[in-house]
């Protein structure tokens, strides 16, 4: 009897394994698996990779997308948005992509994730998108727009740039929340309000150094020899970072003789544009509506050439390669000021508002320097815009509607 029952477990096993009629036992792959599709997981949405003509990238900070525009359509009837692609680590929550850096070879681009998205969501667990969470720097493949790497950084990433060889990224943290929080605690020591400059290995997407620079640093630019970084600081300062030292040394220079504090700045530096010929840093201060000049040799400001009289806050400008002209977009009236760097005088202006620009944010020149590409934030409720300005004509010749609150324009590849 006992012997007769010995085969029962084997039969039960056999029948159990077969009870659903499946030829598969468990989740281990069968040995003789037969595939019908040699290329699995095809792209859902195919976007052609950038060609030799180059591509314009725009970060839309309130809807987690990038707008893509072919560079060689600028100034033509074909000037339009090629595609709008999602960017971020999480398809559920808005993450606030902020600024883009591109690799010199045009194979990768980098996007800061700020996690600052006003109105990003709320509930009993708290309000989302306030910038209190850590940010990220993302690395994306320029051909596929797919994420290939990321590194966590501090809260409120601001600007991000790449070194000329593409091996190193520099990312600031515009952490005004930190200033406000410490001020609320009655703390006035500005060194405690400092936020850090992240120095990132672009190949491995790992942090090489985190350097305390100043309260709420935003724009960062490198000197021609890339031994120095200049950073616009909300605390009415420019930080000069010696990248040859280990750890990097920081010197802070007040942008004016008449300055405020990190809590109550009088000038509120936000953006910064570097002259390709003199190396001077032209600092855009949003509160005083001035553009102040830092001499890189003396490391002192040159008040004689401060750009004054702008009718709104200046933002991210661009120099011509000969250093003779500075184009500076500014807000409120929304215009592009054409500035003589030798004198600091505004030579003329290009009206952007009549083309639909609201809150001009940055200008980038096309490689042939024939056009200025001005990105405008919009009203943060509806689409922002990108405008192509014919610099010789001084007129907007093309406008493209993009996503919500675009805050940067970069050019990927493209040959003059």
């Amino acid at each position: 009897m006992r012997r007769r029952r010995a085969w029962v477990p084997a039969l039960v096993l056999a029948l159990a394994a077969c009870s659903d009629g499946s030829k598969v036992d468990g989740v281990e792959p069968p040995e003789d698996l037969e595939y019908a599709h040699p290329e699995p997981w095809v792209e859902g949405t195919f976007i052609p990779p950038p060609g030799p003509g180059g591509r314009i990238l725009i970060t839309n900070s309130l809807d987690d997308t990038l707008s893509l525009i072919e560079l060689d359509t600028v100034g033509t009837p074909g000037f339009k948005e090629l595609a709008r692609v999602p960017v971020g680590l999480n398809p559920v929550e808005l993450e606030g992509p902020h600024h883009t850096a591109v690799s010199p070879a045009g194979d990768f681009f980098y996007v800061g994730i700020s996690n600052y998205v006003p109105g990003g969501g709320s509930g009993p667990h708290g309000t989302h998108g306030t910038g209190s969470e850590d940010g990220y720097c993302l690395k994306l493949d320029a051909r596929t727009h797919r994420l290939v790497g990321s590194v966590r950084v501090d809260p409120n990433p601001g600007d991000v740039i790449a070194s000329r060889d593409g091996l190193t990224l520099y990312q600031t943290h515009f952490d005004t929340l930190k200033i406000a929080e410490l001020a609320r605690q009655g703390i006035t020591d500005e060194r405690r309000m400092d936020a850090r400059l992240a120095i990132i290995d672009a190949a491995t997407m790992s942090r090489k150094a985190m350097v305390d620079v100043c309260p709420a640093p935003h724009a960062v630019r490198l000197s021609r020899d890339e031994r120095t970084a200049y950073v616009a600081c909300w605390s009415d300062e420019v930080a000069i970072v010696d990248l040859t030292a280990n750890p990097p040394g920081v010197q802070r220079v007040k942008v004016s003789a008449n300055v405020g504090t990190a809590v109550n700045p009088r000038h509120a530096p936000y953006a910064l544009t570097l002259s390709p010929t003199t190396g001077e840093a032209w600092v855009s201060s949003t509160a005083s509506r001035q553009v102040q000049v830092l001499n890189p040799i003396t490391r002192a400001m040159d008040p004689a050439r401060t750009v004054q009289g702008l009718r709104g806050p200046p933002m991210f400008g661009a120099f011509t390669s000969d250093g003779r002209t500075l184009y500076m977009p500014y807000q409120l009236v929304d215009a592009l000021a054409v500035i003589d760097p030798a004198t600091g005088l505004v030579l003329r202006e290009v009206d952007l508002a009549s083309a639909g620009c609201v809150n001009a944010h940055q200008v980038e020149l096309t490689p042939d320097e024939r056009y200025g590409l001005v990105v405008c934030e919009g009203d943060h409720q509806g689409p922002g815009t990108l405008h192509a300005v014919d610099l010789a004509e001084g007129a907007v010749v093309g406008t493209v509607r993009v996503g919500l609150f675009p805050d940067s324009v970069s050019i990927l590849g493209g040959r003059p």
Partner: protein
Amino acid sequence: MRLAGWTAVALAAFAAGCGGDDGPVSAAEYGEVLFNDARLSESTFNRFSCATCHATTPTPPAGRLDSGYTLYDSAFRGSWWGGYETRLLDAVNFCYVNFMRGVAPLTEDSPQSRALYEYLVSISPSRDAKPLPFTVVKDATEVARGSRARGQEVYRAACQGCHGEPHTGAGRLTELASVLPEVTADYGELFPGVPPSVVVIEKVRHGQFFGVGGNMPLYSAEALSDADLGALLTFLEL
């Protein structure tokens, strides 16, 4: 003689590869098994399979309110997660890592990954399927209450699969799923001044995201209407 006969039957069944067909196994068939098996994820804490949140029929079966869309005709939608994933594997992996506790995303060329793809293709006859909306309800705010009877239906269709019977949790998918509505007893202490109903609304609308934590998927506006959510809250006496 009888013993030998039954042994032969059992061995024959094994030898036949269970289905009586000794041919190769199609990847789609294997993919269907994986789709329905929580062991696709190596996590010992996972109890979710793809089928926990997704139907595979053109319309979801009656009595089922899933957080995820049916995956019938899903393979060629072009984008997923409301347009925020443009590659099907990325969309799948978002579920796999976040809800199924997958330790690492499925790779493009693993047998499991390829088989899942082939199964999804096998239930996707339309090459022109359009992307589907996925509206995240960003702010957790009160909703109008509905009928208790409808709320009971919603509970059975949307909640019971994971949370089990109300008040006892009997039959719940995992002990990590809270017992409803008893879990709200602590909310007064955890969220002082906040009605427990709003905490539940947040959990339903945000799932594990927006700093909430846990493992629950979220219900978009398309997956669960405010009217049904209001009815559910009535049923839960919240």
